[in-house]
């Protein structure tokens, strides 16, 4: 009877948490309104109790996983007896039901932390903050209790569970979802602050200070989560990349982009008291994006490798989104008076304008991602035909937008607030600009010709130049003023001007990301069939296929190709790409192996090994500069931590150095996770769906063979998104999808043109198989929309800047008249405070 006890216990804990949450929201508010202490105390206790009950429920579910309680349907679906201990813990968020419970629990933990921090400090806001957070928890508990209870019992009780998807059995996967969830749920705190500030009409600079830190914390988790997700895809999915514009990746990217816009525009409000409505809207929008992302993954609207299938939560999320929209923007509309700007723009050439453009670009990027994600669904609704927009669509918009943002990253820090003179700009930018030109010249001289790579080189060098200038000048000033040696001055500068210099370090991380992305252009890949003992050469490396190995273990059998990697006759490494056949699933998984050369990865994937001839089919991908992507994650992490350093705790440079060293030691962990993960990997992507006896017509053709070339070019016109791979069409040119390859070969034999072949595939799968759909009809609208928006927005911003900067000359003149008199006591006071104030 022990088995169903956990299900019974867990369900009841959740049922109890449900009214307690509602009680907390209402009673706390009522207590404050009525001024009754009893109600306030009860409301605050309810918040803590709600968290305690949810914690107990989470512990119960973990316990159910650890004790193999398969009477609970959720446990039976995501665990089994042979699953290692560590992965049993991850069962909590491996599926839909558990992940929603995990999500809810995180919000409740945040709610308790916020209550502890702000009960006294922001007593006016606290009941409303609490009510908002409890409202969110209440909504999620409704989902859990009425639609997806993770404690739902199953009958009859299976003898063993179905086990965790082998794809998810990876260390990066252990850290990646909690990180993302911490980020997603973290945004509910600033959202709650905004709602509280709007309701109480207390919209001054205090809420900005209170929310900024929370946004940064959530942003940090989201950033780390995204990078870890990329690392997981890279080592685990075996297609050689880390980002595929998959709907669920997009869902996490959208709140990140909006939050990034907020983190920049909030500075304008802090310094100049402008853009209040904008900032409040951005916070609400960020939160909406997190909920929207959850909706995307849990509603079946989009098709994605991440999506939880068979979910019926869509309508619930849409209702919740509608509530946020109406409440949030309704409140803004009714508080327009309080949200009016105190200042206006003074000049075109100011930090404010740069930030405005930055915001517009980030929002256009968000819209592009949103549009591209929803476009297949939208086109299906409008035209009845599901049109996919693949990476070419995203790259077309995001590439240029990214480059302009990169350029702004160079200009922005060098332009001063209010107004900047051209002389200043020349002083600040000439050096970096010359440096950038030199870098461009060198790149060109080295034979670089792709415009994207050249532009990236130019801009990265430019931004690098400005960053160098900022750090070196700042360090010299501090060294001079405080009589410190340069290294100590460097740390002193970072610690004391932490918001500015932490921000620059984050920018450095973004630079690394751009370098990593640009490396993608030079990715080279080749497919090879080799006999045992033979070798092949690719990009200056020699791959020797030593022998095939078949290893049987308790829950899987491994097919391994033992390889040796050589360069210039020198052995570099032993590589062992493999295919794992798990006994619980039919899907074989592909285990990538790679060699990290300086500035490039040699990435080796095993397609198949013929059991009789022992011929191995291998795919080699050379990924230049990819390590910069992981490095960017670490750098952004470090930068954000520096920005978050509290102002009060001003520490000695030496102790800071120690902390930095410890931190960097800690930061090595993700890379270890990544390295370890590299040794155990898999993929559904290359599952061969062909009947076992299908003869592959392309077997033993060299990559130079025109027939093979033609196949490859046809293959490339097909969508390379995961779910399509399962239909066997996308990796045509990979030599792995025998069935589709045989079909194409037959069509080629019967003298059909490429167009005929494409047509046949479109007939079978719909337009959606095409990477770039034909340019007609609704598709054109879809493709050009973000571009139109970008142009439109830039024009509008231009007008805004012009109108604003015209408006100010009058107020500025008035301001100038009020020069404080010589003996003004406030002048004295301010000078004194300034002297004591340490930047």
């Amino acid at each position, binding site marked *: 009877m022990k088995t169903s006890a956990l299900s019974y216990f867990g369900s009841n804990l959740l049922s*109890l948490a449900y009214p307690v949450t509602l009680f907390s929201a209402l009673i706390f508010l009522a207590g404050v309104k009525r001024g009754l202490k009893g109600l306030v105390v*009860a409301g605050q206790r309810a918040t803590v109790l709600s968290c305690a009950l949810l914690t107990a429920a989470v512990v119960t579910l973990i316990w159910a996983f650890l004790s193999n309680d398969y009477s609970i349907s959720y446990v039976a679906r995501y665990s089994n007896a042979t699953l290692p201990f560590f992965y049993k813990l991850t069962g909590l968020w491996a599926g839909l039901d558990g992940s929603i419970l995990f999500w809810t629990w995180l919000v409740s933990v945040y709610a308790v932390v916020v209550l502890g921090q702000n009960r006294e400090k922001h007593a006016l806001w606290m009941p409303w903050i609490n009510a908002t957070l409890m409202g969110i928890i209440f909504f999620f508990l409704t989902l859990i209790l009425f639609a997806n209870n993770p404690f739902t019992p199953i009958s009859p009780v299976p003898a063993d569970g179905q086990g965790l998807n082998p794809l998810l059995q990876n260390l990066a996967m252990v850290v990646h979802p909690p990180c993302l969830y911490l980020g997603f749920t973290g945004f509910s705190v600033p959202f709650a602050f905004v709602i509280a500030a709007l309701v109480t009409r207390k919209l001054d600079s205090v809420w900005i200070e209170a929310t900024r830190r929370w946004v940064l914390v959530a942003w940090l988790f989201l950033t780390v989560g995204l990078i870890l997700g990329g690392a997981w895809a890279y080592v685990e999915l075996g297609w050689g990349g880390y980002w595929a514009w998959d709907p669920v990746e997009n869902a996490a990217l959208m709140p990140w982009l909006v939050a990034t816009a907020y983190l920049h525009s909030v500075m304008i409000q802090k310094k100049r*008291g402008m853009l209040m409505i904008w900032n409040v809207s951005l916070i609400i929008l960020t939160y909406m994006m997190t909920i929207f992302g959850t909706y995307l993954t849990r509603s079946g609207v989009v098709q994605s490798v991440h999506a939880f299938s068979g979910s019926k939560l869509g309508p619930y999320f849409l209702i919740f989104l509608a509530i946020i929209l109406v409440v949030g923007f309704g409140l803004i509309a009714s508080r327009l008076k309080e949200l009016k700007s105190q200042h206006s723009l003074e000049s075109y050439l100011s930090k404010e304008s740069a930030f405005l453009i930055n915001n517009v670009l980030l929002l256009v990027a968000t819209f592009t991602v949103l549009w591209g994600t929803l476009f297949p669904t939208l086109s299906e609704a409008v035209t009845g035909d599901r049109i996919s927009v693949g990476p070419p669509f995203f790259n077309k918009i995001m590439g240029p937008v990214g480059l302009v943002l990169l350029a702004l990253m160079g200009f922005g820090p060098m332009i001063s607030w*209010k107004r900047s003179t051209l002389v200043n700009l020349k002083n600040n930018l000439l050096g970096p600009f010359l440096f950038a030109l030199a870098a461009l010249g060198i790149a060109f001289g080295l034979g670089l010709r792709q415009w994207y790579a050249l532009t990236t080189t130019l801009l990265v060098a430019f931004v690098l130049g400005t960053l160098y200038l900022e750090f070196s000048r700042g360090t010299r*000033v501090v060294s001079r003023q405080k009589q410190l040696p340069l290294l100590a001055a460097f740390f002193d500068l970072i610690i004391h001007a932490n918001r500015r210099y932490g921000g620059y370090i984050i920018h450095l991380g973004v630079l690394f990301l751009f370098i990593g992305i640009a490396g993608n252009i030079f990715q080279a890949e080749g497919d090879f069939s080799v006999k045992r003992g033979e070798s092949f050469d690719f990009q200056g490396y020699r791959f020797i296929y030593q022998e095939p190995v078949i290893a049987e273990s308790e829950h899987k059998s491994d097919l391994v190709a033992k390889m040796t990697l050589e360069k210039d006759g020198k052995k570099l490494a032993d590589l062992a790409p493999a295919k794992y056949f798990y006994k619980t699933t039919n899907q074989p998984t592909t285990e990538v192996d790679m060699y990290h050369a300086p500035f490039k990865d040699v990435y080796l994937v095993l397609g198949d090994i013929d059991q009789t001839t022992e011929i191995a089919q291998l795919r080699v991908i050379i990924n230049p500069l990819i390590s910069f992507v992981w490095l960017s994650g670490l750098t952004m992490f470090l930068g954000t931590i520096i920005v978050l350093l509290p102002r009060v705790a001003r520490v000695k440079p030496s102790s800071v150095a120690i902390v930095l060293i410890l931190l960097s030691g800690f930061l090595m962990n993700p890379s270890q996770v990544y390295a370890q993960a590299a040794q155990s990997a898999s993929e559904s992507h290359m599952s061969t769906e062909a009947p076992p006896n299908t003869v592959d017509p392309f077997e033993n053709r060299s990559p130079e063979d025109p027939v093979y070339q033609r196949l490859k070019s046809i293959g490339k016109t097909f969508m390379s998104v995961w779910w399509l791979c399962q239909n066997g069409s996308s990796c045509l040119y990979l030599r792995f999808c025998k069935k589709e390859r045989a079909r194409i070969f037959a069509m080629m034999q019967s003298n059909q043109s490429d167009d005929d072949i494409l047509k046949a595939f479109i007939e079978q799968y719909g337009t959606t198989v095409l990477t770039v759909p034909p340019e007609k009809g609704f598709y054109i609208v879809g493709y050009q929309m973000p571009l139109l928006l970008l142009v439109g927005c830039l024009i509008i911003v231009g007008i805004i800047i012009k109108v604003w900067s015209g408006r100010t000359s009058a107020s500025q003149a008035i301001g100038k008249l*009020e*020069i404080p008199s010589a003996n003004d006591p406030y002048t004295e006071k*301010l000078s004194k405070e300034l002297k004591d104030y340490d930047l």
Partner: protein
Amino acid sequence: MTLVTFFLVLIFAITLYLLVSPLVLDDTVSAPHISNGVEDLNCRKKEILESLKEFELDRNMEKISHEDYQSLYQETFVEGTRLLKELEQKEQRPVVAPKVVRDTTQVIVPAQSAGTPKFCSQCGQALEPQGKFCSQCGHKIQRAL
């Protein structure tokens, strides 16, 4: 199962007790103070101090020209003094020297900065602390004792 039910009942009872027991308190709490803006002004003051420091850093780094520094610094400084004035009114206690001792200013304010104007009364130029004439227009600086 009975044990589990027992635990659940226990948890339910504890929850109920914790939530209901404070309700019998008939203490009243004062409603949270409706903000009179002091917090906000303090926050903005901090921001102004930081801006001023950043302008200084920027000037020392030669990131902004001397002229820009002066005008930006002065504007922000003036805004700061206005804020202090407002803050004083809001807090309803003097931020600066109490009125009673007004005529003995020299005792209260540190001597070296006493009466040193920050800006030229003629042209508004920011002044060097020890200068006798304005570096912009040459106007003689009048110093208090």
